[in-house]
């Protein structure tokens, strides 16, 4: 029914709300976990990635 190229997702408002919120929460959790966690083991493992991403690290 849709002919525009922009319509690769056709979701209702509530579906968008759930899917978007879920993606956003998961994404932010990953960013905070990898990039900002103060746990020293995580810090040391992700150290070079954090510096390369320009995140305020230590």
């Amino acid at each position, binding site marked *: 029914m849709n002919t525009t*190229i*922009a*319509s*690769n*997702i056709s*979701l209702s408002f509530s*579906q*968008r*709300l*759930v*899917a*978007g*919120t*879920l*993606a*956003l*929460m*998961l*994404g*932010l*959790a*990953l*960013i905070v*976990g*990898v*990039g*900002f966690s103060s*746990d*020293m*083991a995580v*810090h*040391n*493992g*992700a*150290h*070079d*990635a*954090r*510096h*390369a*991403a*320009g*995140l*305020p*690290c*230590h």
Partner: protein
Amino acid sequence: MFGRILFAAVLAGLLAGLAMSVVQIGRTSALILEAEAYEVAESGPTGVAPAAETGPRPFSPAPGFERNALTVLANMLLGAGIALTLAGVSTLANMPVNTGNGLVWGLFGFIAITLAPAFGLPPELPGKIAAELGSRQTWWWSTVLVTATAFLAVARFRTPIVLVIAAAVVLAPHLIGAPAAPVVVNGPAGPPAGLTADFVVATLLQMLVLWLVIGFGYGWLLDRFAKKATPA
């Protein structure tokens, strides 16, 4: 349908992290190692020493393969995180990413999330003297949040008044100013300026790679999944 969004974002993000790792392993990581050599020469053991050294030492990867493997893994997870965040924002704002506009999403993501905070807080080599961590993280998150919101507002509404407000909002964190590094009179000088310049260029390049692959990859995958689901 949910699955498509999440799967496309995770796949694009992991691939982008892998692509960015080519630049990191080939260039950026070598510069980090070089900076650490200065750090050791100036102040003893590498990295930040935890305040209390009494407990068991926290995990630290062995130099070489283990350290690089973890860097690639962290890059891929960070890529997935950024791609999922982009997918979430685009879905909530009802502004779909597709093959045609994916690179534009990636470019503006790079400007908002990488370049804007880097203008006030340039990517740091280990050993760089900087302001207190908490204040820098607060400035980083605030800058990222207001810049990305301003860009989205302009893309969504495209009116002169929104443009003017967005420009003011984008400039605000820089007018307020990032937390300044303390002036060190008689302490470690930090990594040499030339090394820092090389490092900043390398990190910005690898983050640009990450963003462009995320933007294009996510849009392309969504289009592909949509085509498969509804064969014309």
